[in-house]
């Protein structure tokens, strides 16, 4: 064999070598081309093509750049490459809905995208330059883009105070607070109030076991004016705060037995003045008179009643207290009398003010409630043994704790339950792996999880302890929005510095004023230095606004200043001494330094007053909103008694800049000259209600 043969290569090997070399070269040549087909390059080309076909090409392409664009804000931890594809966000000419995404301009909002980036508000993955990675939940990114309907959730991450620009967020927070979610969960920005549900220690005094049984079945059924179980309840009105727990009849019987068995001192029946009882017992119009009194005292400012109007059952009245349509079938008469007399004895933290009742009024109203606000059929279908069995009581006790009742309701001698549900203060930041989807068929993503968990807790976990809440239309979305805003402590230092904390001022009233303030629960409706309700006017500057004698009179006999208001100050029957104390305090303490009451004003002349009248009626046509006597608009307050009511300095200041005194007032800020202001003030201070006018005002007047 020739030695040269040792180097000879067979044809087969040659062929394999040739083929593999060719493929090798192809593959090496092709591999780098993958980059050309990146999604972002596709969108760059598309944008260029779109801009090319428009009249404003030059402007659109002025800062076009073929590479990757990004917004980089290291202190916000923002590296947002969204603008690589969303190239038109700053182009005002691309606002039309006809412009295809991702090129449409961003609507103008207070935060400029170039300063804040995109993911701070929208979430999603700013690093990504691929559609799916940027928008959806992926293995490498668990926080998808927030749907626009929930985007207000991210406003709440920094803005811990409610902002008017984010109505859904504010509504969601209000609902969460209103439904006492804080009873079981830790929540961001919400503190546990002193009382959530009523104290149940003495419930035996208040109601019957049958009623408790029925209430536990579905608290909403009691609000139905027709006696039918209505699944929707009053969808558009407020629901009872009590949610529906999943309990069977045995459990309900046990719980009601347990609650009714609490050893409490039975209240002594109130002894009415025998003359009053004797006089009114036989009167045929006793109940009607009671109803009139009930109306006059404006119970409906806080409580609602079901009323049939035009064939439809509607709830009329406020939502601060419970709805009362069937309360007569619920409460015991002796309890009702003692409650009306002094609610703070039964529920010290409750919101019900302590009225000053005359025996007569109390007798009449009590009869009205027990007679008219009842439903004889309400408890007809409740079948439970009369006597509570010992084992029922025992299992009721167990259930009370298992269901977490103690989170909201207190029973003397039982330990309050705390942190019954999971901590939700960082729920909006939870990653998919922290959520328990169970066997539920839904996208593995925080948003559908929250939606179905809140709407129907058992849809996610069949053994959920969470009860069933019912939301008005749209409120579910608001609650999800608010839950998404709870992202816990911000770890990014830049964002941490941006958090605008919710200042929740506490207003403590001391002394005699404090006692009356607490007795009449003024803070439930009025606001004092930032603390309190928003139903009625803010009283922080009441001393600057109103004259002291007027306040005294008003407290004794409240009148309505705004004709359109349905919620009116109740008739508390304030004593003279209390009226004096309250008015003194309001006039002296509740002042703003914008209005100088001590400044000397020259006396107004009658010429000024008539010039003011001219301005009022002709030039500025104030009567379009304000009423004087019976003529004029409904929007602003009735000015018929302005001279007695308002301080001169206040009127002057008000005409200068109303929003400076009451920021959310809708009084238009006009540019009055100094003369005009003086003239209008001069006119307004002449408006003093005389005896003859008093009769024509329907809601009473000053005495």
């Amino acid at each position, binding site marked *: 064999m020739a*030695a040269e043969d040792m*180097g000879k*290569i067979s044809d087969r090997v040659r062929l394999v*070598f040739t083929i*593999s070399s060719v*493929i*090798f070269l192809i593959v*090496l040549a092709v*591999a780098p081309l993958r980059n050309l087909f990146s999604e972002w390059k596709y969108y760059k080309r598309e944008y260029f093509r779109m801009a090319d076909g428009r009249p404003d090409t030059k402007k659109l392409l002025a800062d076009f750049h073929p590479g990757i664009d990004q917004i980089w804000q290291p202190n916000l931890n923002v590296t947002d490459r969204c603008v690589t594809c969303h190239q038109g966000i700053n182009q005002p000419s691309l606002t039309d809905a006809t412009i295809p995404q991702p090129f449409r301009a961003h609507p103008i909002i207070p935060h400029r995208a170039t300063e804040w980036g995109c993911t701070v508000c929208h979430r999603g993955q700013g690093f990504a330059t691929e559609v799916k990675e940027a928008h959806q939940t992926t*293995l490498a990114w668990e926080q998808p883009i927030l749907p626009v309907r929930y985007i207000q959730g991210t406003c709440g991450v920094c803005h811990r105070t409610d902002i008017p620009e984010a109505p859904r967020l504010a509504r969601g927070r209000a609902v969460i607070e209103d439904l006492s979610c804080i009873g079981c969960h830790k929540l961001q920005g919400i503190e546990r109030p002193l009382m959530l549900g009523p104290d149940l220690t003495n419930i035996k005094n208040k109601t019957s076991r049958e009623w408790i049984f029925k209430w536990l079945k579905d608290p909403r059924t009691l609000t139905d004016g027709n006696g039918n179980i209505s699944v929707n309840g009053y969808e558009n009105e407020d629901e009872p705060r009590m949610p529906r727990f999943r309990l069977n009849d045995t459990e309900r019987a046990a719980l009601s037995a347990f609650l009714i068995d609490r050893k409490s001192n039975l209240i002594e029946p109130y002894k009415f003045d025998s003359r009053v009882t004797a006089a009114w017992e036989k009167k045929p119009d006793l109940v009607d008179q009671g109803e009139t009194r009930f109306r006059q005292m404006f119970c409906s400012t806080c409580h609602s009643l079901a009323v049939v109007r035009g064939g439809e059952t509607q709830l009329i009245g406020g939502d601060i207290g419970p709805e009362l349509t069937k309360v007569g079938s619920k409460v015991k008469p002796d309890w009702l009398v003692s409650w009306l007399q002094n609610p703070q004895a039964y529920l010290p933290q409750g919101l019900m003010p302590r009225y000053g009742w005359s025996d007569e009024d109390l007798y009449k109203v009590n009869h009205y409630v027990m007679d008219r606000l009842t439903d004889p059929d309400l408890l007809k279908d409740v079948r439970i043994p009369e006597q509570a069995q010992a084992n029922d009581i025992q299992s009721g006790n167990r259930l009370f704790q298992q269901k977490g009742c103690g989170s909201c309701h207190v029973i003397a001698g039982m330990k309050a339950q705390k942190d019954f549900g999971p901590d939700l203060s960082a729920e909006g930041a939870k990653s998919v792996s922290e959520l328990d989807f169970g066997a539920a068929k839904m996208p593995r993503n925080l948003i559908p999880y929250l939606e179905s968990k809140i709407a129907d807790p058992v849809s996610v976990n069949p053994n959920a302890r969470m009860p069933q809440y019912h939301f008005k239309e749209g409120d579910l979305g608001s609650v999800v929005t608010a839950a998404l805003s709870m992202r816990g402590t911000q770890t990014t230092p830049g964002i941490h510095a941006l958090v605008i904390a919710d200042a929740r001022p506490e207003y403590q009233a001391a002394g005699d004023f404090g006692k009356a303030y607490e007795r009449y629960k003024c803070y439930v409706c009025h606001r004092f230095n930032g603390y309190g309700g928003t139903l009625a006017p803010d009283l922080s500057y009441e001393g600057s606004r109103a004259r002291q004698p007027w306040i005294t009179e008003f407290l004794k006999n409240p009148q309505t200043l705004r004709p359109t208001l349905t919620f009116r100050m109740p008739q508390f029957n304030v004593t003279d001494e209390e009226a004096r104390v309250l008015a003194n305090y309001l006039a002296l303490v509740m002042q703003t330094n914008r209005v100088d009451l001590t400044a000397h004003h020259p006396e107004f002349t009658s010429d000024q007053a008539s010039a003011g009248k001219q301005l009022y009626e002709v030039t500025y046509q104030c009567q379009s909103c304000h009423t004087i006597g019976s003529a004029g608009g409904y929007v602003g307050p009735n000015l018929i008694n302005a001279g007695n009511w308002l301080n001169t300095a206040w009127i002057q200041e008000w005409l200068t800049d109303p929003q400076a005194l009451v920021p959310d007032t809708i009084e238009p800020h006009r540019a009055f000259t100094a003369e005009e202001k003086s003239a209008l003030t001069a006119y307004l201070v002449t408006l003093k209600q005389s005896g003859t006018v008093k009769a024509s005002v329907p809601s009473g007047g000053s005495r």
Partner: protein
Amino acid sequence: MSENRKFEAGIGSDFSKDPVRIVFITKKTSAKVRGVLRDQVMSYPHVVLREIIAFELLTIVLVLMALFWDAPLEQLANPLLTPNPAKAPWYFLGLQELLHYFPPIVAGVLIPVLIIIGLVAIPYFDLNVKGEPLWNARRTPRLRIFCGIVLIFLMFFGVYKAWSIFVTTAIIAALAVAGYFVPAGRGSAIEYLRSRSLPWWLMTWFIIMACILTIIGTFFRGPGWSWVWPWR
């Protein structure tokens, strides 16, 4: 190379054509150059060409896979968020599966150390130098020892309820023992098993065991290292 030692010098190939290559071989070594010239080919180009082809094929496969399969990337490392189950890289999942059965000191330390020692020691025990079939000689004593050791192992696995190991071991041992009873010259498959040596059986057992444990650890273990079916 001191003068007083004797070496036998030999030439490995055709002196005139091949590069000079001197080999010193002492009398005591067993290594000998077996110069069967006909059997040989030049490395250049035969080996070199084949290696290039191998490299090209490898690159083609790798590049194509890299184009269409993206390396996984999960979320940012978070010590507070433990995935369930937390799994090691796939080549350690057999070990992790062992940890499920045996105490950590056995599965985590003893077994890996024994495996490494075993692998290192293989060439130094002339068990398989001749590749002698297991049942060639001293058949009965070997069978007794073999069965004894297998039974001890099975008991050990049984005590720890390591059933996947138990079953696999039992099947392989049964196949090995089957070779003892089968007379020579039957079907080719049985003949194949009969002619296997002891190290062959050991290594095969090891490889099958490692594969099964790795597959179980990779595909059949879910939350809390419980058994799950991968298609569910």
